[in-house]
């Protein structure tokens, strides 16, 4: 029984999806008897099976809908109202089926009298309105004819499962039941006669003239059985497992091929060739089992469009082309939702209202065309409407308002580039939010979903003529064909999908790299192609490094409408690879989409074209920012104060004003249940990681919460932790911190504008001793009695303020200097320092120059100098090393700085000893 039920559920769900589609079709072509027959047959089957399985609720609804549809067949005009009602009943059936599935075969309690009554009412009114007494006979005839047709049609569909006669009888009885209620009682007697008569003629027709009923039916029966025996249902999991194993097999085969390639005369060659072919075929075969026509993902769309059409009062017709295009079912699942969303968008925003359309000289009925076709190793899906098109002006306005772009950037952009803004997050040009779409989470979600499966989305639109969205997705996700390239001695795989062509670079040929303000470009068929060296994208080298002019390849890539060239050192071959996800430790690297094992056993990183494209984009804007900054510098050479943006943690504590602390100083954000806060020796403590952590309040008036959880910032240093009690954590922002007003109040360094609000920057140095009186003392004790003298050079007052207490706390005697110039003066005066800590980014003389000139002086050749910088990249570190720095520390890496100082001093002592 269980198996039977499961089978019934799967099959019925499938049938219902078909009914959905067919009904919508039928509404448009009410005279197409074939469609109606099809629907009738499906509903009838459901009804019959329900009766057989003992599901009275389902049976009743199916029966009532069938009755109404019977009336349609009798020639009653099809109204949207009645189709809606039938669709509603289908929905109800689905609902019940869903519950049935959940509850393991028990039909849920419930009453469907509302629907059934409505269905019956329509059936009755149809009768009353359309069928007079004289129409009684044709009606019977029609019913009888129908009876016969599905007898013939039905058998091939469900061979041998449910006794047909049984169903047939049930159906006929049901039919009679209704007829009894509706028709005049005289007809009751007349019916059999009519039926017999018509049956003969009808079946005669069905058997194309000559063949007898008996002969005809078994023939169809056999055919049906044949089909059912040829296909079996397989659990998706089984197929997935099979696919994984085949993928592994492909990998192993590749490895074997690689080995044999190295041994020319191997006897394995021939059998391996055969294995290779078989594997390829196997792969193809398994792939095929996973392939499904894209129409499966489209099934719900006609219904959605129909409902939308009614809801929005816009006549819409949906045309679907290429529904039999096949693609991997995994991909199919993933594009279902984006597609639905896009169709909704087209219907809601894309198409104008009928009045507008007429005014624009278009037919009243809007057309949405959905098409799918194969192209290369991928599938293209296009959603096109003949509506108003994208409004460029509106997009520009919105893009500016959202701060995605600037006026000057916009001017340089092509229309297509501007249109692409609709894929940006939170972008919706619909001025009104309807309940259909326009909630601002539209196209960016679609784009994300599409990109997640390695696809891309593009838009083409002409104002007034309509828009078209084109999704390009790989046929399958499991195996990707990639181009293996080399950069900086390492190999990388680039998915073929986004590779357009390869260009060999030669300094004397037309393909040579030229530069516009240090940015490499290539003339390619009378167009300029922006270039970026892969080694630079991957952080191997800085951008000013000269590109090897004679020995390079350019991989021309296309991502969306963005086309660019990636310069690589070498190109090897293409290889089919199985993408393996990156370990979670590396997943945040946007430049890679995964990794895989190559034929030779080495692991290779797979470049993510989308990551490259966005890096290109940010690269370009980065250059812009640089330029602007350069100009700003020229204008006011002096004022460069803590200019690099830093991450700040915004919170509220004690008062309503926002407070901020550099995020890097915070060890952790914690929340403790208030009940965990204990009071001991006159202060609040919590047990934290096996030790007692004292809590500190921002000021005397601040208190911890009385119930719930208490958020706090945990600061740790040398095994000690303190919890700063805050009211709530507001945000983490990246902003330039420029202290505008220096504070006199203890605990506050000053106020700065962060996120356009005056924000108090707290002075951690004030709070640490509140937790442990000896926080700083302890360290001073541990250090040598004679504190070492330290010169700290930084042009930013903020950093001088922030780091001086830290350095002092670590036991150094700190002298600060606002510039390298001042530092020179101090040193010239004969001041003796044990070490120098200097900022890199300073006006006039920067840290590198400062260090280099010190190293040039014999007196300071061995003086430890530590660089402190907001910019920590391998290049900058190298540059620092070249300039003669002993160490290079990130500006906010406080412990790093202390450790580094300790290191240079111990080294020094080691050398001395």
């Amino acid at each position, binding site marked *: 029984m269980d198996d039977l039920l499961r089978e019934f559920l799967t099959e019925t769900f499938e049938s219902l999806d078909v009914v959905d589609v067919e009904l919508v079709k039928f509404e448009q072509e009410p005279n197409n008897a074939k469609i109606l027959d099809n629907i009738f047959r499906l509903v009838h089957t459901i009804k019959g099976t329900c009766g057989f399985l003992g599901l009275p609720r389902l049976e009743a609804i199916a029966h009532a809908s069938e009755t109404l549809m019977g009336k349609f067949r009798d020639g009653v005009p099809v109204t949207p109202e009645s189709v809606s009602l039938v669709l509603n009943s289908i929905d109800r059936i689905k609902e019940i089926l869903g519950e049935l599935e959940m509850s393991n075969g028990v039909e849920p309690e419930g009453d469907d009298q509302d629907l059934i009554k409505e269905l019956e009412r329509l059936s009755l009114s149809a009768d009353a309105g359309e069928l007079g007494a004289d129409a009684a006979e044709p009606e019977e005839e029609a019913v009888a004819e129908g009876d016969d047709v599905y007898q013939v049609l039905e058998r091939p569909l469900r061979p041998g499962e449910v006794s047909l006669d049984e169903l047939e009888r049930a159906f006929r009885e049901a039919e009679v039941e209704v007829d009894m209620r509706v028709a005049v009682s005289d007809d009751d007697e007349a019916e059999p006669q009519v039926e017999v008569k018509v049956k003969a003629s009808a079946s005669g027709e069905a058997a194309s003239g000559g063949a007898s009923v008996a002969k005809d039916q078994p023939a169809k029966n056999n055919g049906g059985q044949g089909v059912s025996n040829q296909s079996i249902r397989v659990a998706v999991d089984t197929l997935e497992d099979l696919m994984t194993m085949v993928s592994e097999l492909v990998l192993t085969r590749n490895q074997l091929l690689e080995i044999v390639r190295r041994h020319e005369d191997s006897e394995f060659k021939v059998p391996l060739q055969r294995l290779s072919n078989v594997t390829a075929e196997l792969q193809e075969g398994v792939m095929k089992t996973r392939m499904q026509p894209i129409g499966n993902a489209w099934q719900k769309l006609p219904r959605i469009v129909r409902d939308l059409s009614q809801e929005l009062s816009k006549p819409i017709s949906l045309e679907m082309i290429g529904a039999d295009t096949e693609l991997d079912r995994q991909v199919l699942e993933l594009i279902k939702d984006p597609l639905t969303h896009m169709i909704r968008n087209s219907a809601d925003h894309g198409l104008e209202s009928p009045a507008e359309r007429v005014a624009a000289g278009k037919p009243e009925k809007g057309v949405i065309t959905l098409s799918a076709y194969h192209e290369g190793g991928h599938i293209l899906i296009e959603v096109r409407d003949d509506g108003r098109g994208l409004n460029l002006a509106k997009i520009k306005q919105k893009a500016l308002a959202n701060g995605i772009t600037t006026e000057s950037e916009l001017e340089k952009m092509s229309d297509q580039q501007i249109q692409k803004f609709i894929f940006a997050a939170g972008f919706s040009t619909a001025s009104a939010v309807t309940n259909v779409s326009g909630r601002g989470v539209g196209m960016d979600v679609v784009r994300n979903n599409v990109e997640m499966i390695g696809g891309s989305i593009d838009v083409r639109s002409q104002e007034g003529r309509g828009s078209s969205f084109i999704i390009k997705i790989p046929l399958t996700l499991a195996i990707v064909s990639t181009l293996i390239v080399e950069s900086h001695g*390492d190999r990388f795989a680039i998915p073929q999908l986004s590779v357009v062509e390869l260009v060999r670079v030669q300094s004397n040929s037309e393909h040579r790299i030229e530069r516009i303000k240090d940015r490499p470009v290539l003339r390619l068929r009378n167009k300029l192609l922006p270039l970026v060296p892969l080694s630079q994208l991957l952080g191997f080298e800085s951008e000013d490094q000269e590109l090897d002019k004679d020995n390079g390849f350019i991989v021309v890539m296309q991502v969306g409408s963005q086309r660019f060239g990636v310069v690589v050192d070498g190109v090897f071959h293409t290889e089919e690879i199985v993408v393996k996800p990156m370990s979670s430790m590396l997943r945040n690297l946007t430049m890679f989409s995964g*990794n895989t094992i190559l034929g030779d056993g080495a*692991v290779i990183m797979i470049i993510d074209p989308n990551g490259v494209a966005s890096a290109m984009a940010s690269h370009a804007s980065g250059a812009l920012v640089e330029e602007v900054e350069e100009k700003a510098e020229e204008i006011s050479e002096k004022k460069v104060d803590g200019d690099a943006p830093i991450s700040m943690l915004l919170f509220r504590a004690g008062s309503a004003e926002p407070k901020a602390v550099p995020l*890097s100083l915070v060890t952790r954000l914690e929340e403790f249940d208030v009940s965990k806060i204990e009071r001991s020796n006159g202060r609040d403590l919590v047990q934290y990681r096996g030790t007692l952590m004292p809590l500190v309040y921002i000021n005397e008036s601040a208190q911890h919460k009385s119930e719930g959880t208490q958020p706090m910032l945990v600061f740790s240093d040398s095994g000690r932790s303190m919890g700063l009690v805050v009211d709530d954590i507001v945000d983490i922002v990246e902003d330039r911190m420029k202290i505008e007003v220096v504070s006199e109040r203890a605990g506050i360094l000053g106020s700065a504008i962060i996120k356009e609000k005056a924000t108090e920057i707290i002075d951690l140095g004030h709070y640490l001793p509140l937790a442990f009186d000896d926080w700083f003392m302890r360290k001073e004790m541990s250090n040598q009695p004679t504190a070492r003298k330290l010169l700290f050079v930084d042009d930013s007052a903020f950093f001088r303020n922030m780091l001086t207490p830290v350095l002092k706390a670590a036991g150094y005697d700190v002298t600060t200097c606002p510039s390298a110039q001042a530092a020179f003066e101090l040193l010239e005066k004969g001041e003796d320092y044990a070490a120098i800590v200097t900022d890199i980014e300073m006006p006039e003389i920067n840290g590198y120059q400062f260090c280099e000139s010190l190293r040039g002086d014999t007196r300071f050749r061995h003086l430890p100098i530590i660089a402190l910088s907001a910019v920590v990249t391998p290049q900058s570190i190298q540059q620092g090393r070249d300039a003669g720095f002993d160490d290079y520390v990130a500006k*906010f890496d406080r412990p790093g700085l202390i450790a580094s100082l300790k290191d240079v001093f111990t080294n020094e002592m080691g050398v001395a000893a």
Partner: protein
Amino acid sequence: MSNFAGSNNTELLHASSEYIQYVTVVIGGQLFGLPISQVHDVFVPEKVTRVPLSPPEVEGVLNLRGRIVTAINMRRRLHLPPLDEDQSMMAVGIEYKSESYGLVIDSVGEVLNLPTHEREDNPSNLDWRWAEISGGVHRLEGQLMVILDVDSLLTTLIEPKAA
């Protein structure tokens, strides 16, 4: 862990059964111990593919019998100077949240069976970068063995605090 130790102290007599086996490894001259239950295998890392833009602690990725393993350079994680080029390296394979990681270390030592009640908490003056990933210390004859807390090690690497 600390609860465990506490209950052991009270039932010292039965504590003989409360032993943990540690695989000992040497990193920069210091002896470390990894609970044997967490050690999958020990191997020599070969053909490590560098991962550009990755955190400095990540040595790279490598193929270990068909699985992709992320190799973590423990010297770099512990802020120790790098190993000389000609010295051989070893790696300890571990599983964490069904992903494979390899901790690149200097050398592997013997397996020690140590009673849990002898475990001591980290000394309070331990470098915080070490304390973060240390699960305590065992006093062995002649040297100390730091217990490597594999879970915190990987948590600190996978979810680094924003800085």
